[in-house]
């Protein structure tokens, strides 16, 4: 308990210091573009406690969740398939290399032509960019499963389902999670970008429209909300990963500890 408290304090002093500095340095600000933090926090309280959570934030998170989870599910399924089928993987390899090197956001104009500027386009764009890191990491993870474990699976006659759920997926899981973590980060970016170019609504739209109507305190408040949301998503992801991969973290810590 004491240890957690100390860790919390160690991690917290710098953000608190920066906030205090921001607060006091901006206190007498007359700049239109950099309003006082006090003004920003008033805008924050007015809009985000809690009107715009329902109006903008939840729809944003809903689209992110649908797009992201679709990407993870399809990425893992396709990644396992390609990871296990060398011939198929080799066929699509050049294509994958090409797509890997192209920022997914580049197809945004194309998506807007064919899918419009509404929810479909936003969700599809999030799914599209989040899909690639999941796919590539899953392929990599599945292909690097310890060959001895495949021999064990074969000699103990494990059926296909058990092999998949108890051998291949757990073995690939650390790598799949690495991909999923990259995917959530760029998913959030694309969520904001699509909202800035698409139909009204959402956190990105709130930030951009505040700027356009010179409500700069609101613009800054929106950016702070975005930062907080990104931080929370990352923490949730870490908790989930820590739970699913507890064996892996334990093993790594054990190896580092140098015992046995």
């Amino acid at each position, binding site marked *: 308990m004491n240890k957690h408290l100390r860790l919390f304090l160690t991690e917290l002093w710098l953000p608190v210091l920066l906030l205090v500095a921001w607060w006091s340095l901006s206190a007498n600000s007359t700049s239109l573009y950099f309003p006082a933090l006090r003004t920003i926090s008033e805008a924050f309280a007015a809009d985000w406690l809690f009107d715009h959570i329902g109006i903008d934030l939840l729809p944003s998170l809903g689209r992110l969740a649908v797009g992201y989870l679709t990407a993870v599910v399809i990425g893992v399924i396709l990644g396992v398939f390609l990871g296990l089928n060398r011939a198929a993987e080799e066929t699509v390899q050049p294509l994958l290399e090409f797509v890997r090197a192209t920022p997914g956001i580049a197809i945004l104009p194309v998506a807007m032509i064919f899918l419009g500027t509404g929810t479909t386009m936003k969700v599809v764009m999030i799914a599209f960019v989040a899909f690639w890191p999941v796919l590539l990491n899953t392929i990599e993870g599945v292909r690097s499963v310890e060959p*001895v474990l495949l*021999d064990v699976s*074969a*000699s*103990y006659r*494990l059926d296909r389902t058990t092999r998949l759920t*108890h051998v291949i997926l757990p073995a690939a899981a650390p790598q799949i999670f690495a991909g999923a973590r990259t995917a959530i980060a760029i998913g959030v970016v694309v969520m904001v970008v699509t909202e800035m170019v698409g139909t009204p609504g959402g956190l990105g739209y709130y930030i951009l429209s505040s700027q356009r109507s010179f409500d700069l305190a609101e613009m800054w408040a929106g950016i702070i909300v975005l930062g907080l949301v990104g931080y929370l998503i990352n923490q949730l992801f870490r908790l989930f990963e820590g739970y699913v991969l507890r*064996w892996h973290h334990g093993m790594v810590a054990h190896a580092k500890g140098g015992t046995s």
Partner: protein
Amino acid sequence: MTSPTHAPVPERTHQDVIFSVHGLSHAYGTHRVLERVDVEINAGEFMCIVGPSGVGKSTLLQCLSGLRKPTTGELVFQGTAIDGPPEGMAVVFQDYSRSLMPWLDVRANVTLPLRSAGVSRTERAERAQAALDEVGLSGFEHHYPWQLSGGMQQRVAIARALAFRPALIVMDEPFASVDAQTRADLEDLTLQVRKHLGITFLLVTHDIDEAVYLSDRVLVLNQKPAVVVDVIDVPLDRDRDQITTKSRPEFAEARSRVYELIRGHQA
């Protein structure tokens, strides 16, 4: 082979052949590794395959366990021609650190094959417990493999094989990567398991002492490509001891014969 006066009292009079292999040859491309290998393993016996490093023991073992398809050869296990890993056979691999699932605890590692075979939950738990007791790992059910020492990890692998209730356990250099004391302990554990459960063992090793100490018969593999140069009966009874057995003249004699067969054929 061995003169009748030296032969031990047979513990089984009707020795059923559990696994018969005829004319097994294997080549990697044009590189011939195994040449017309014949092996007959009797139910209940302990056989070691011994040969110098690089002779093709691992390839032979992979073929015997159904993990690799030999170029030619007829393999009949428990009366059925095998084409892939057969039922009733369990393999203990050399590298314990890579043959256990690091994401499963000890018990889950042991029960995984049973789960796939459709064994009920209660029976899985019973079999796992019995197997872990047999190898001296009760109390470690909920440890992860990487929390255990090398010797203990290999015990988990042995328990996994036992819980599978095989007729034959095939072991590939199972004690090659542990220290000498652990190795002796694991050899004795294996002999004790065999005595308790009457499982047939086929163990591949490059260690002549180990082969003679464990076996009823030692199959010597040598030459390039590898052939069976001889099968030697070990005229020792089944109760063995690291010190007394190894100081007996029969042990020394069998050991010398195997040694000569291995050295005599080296180019």
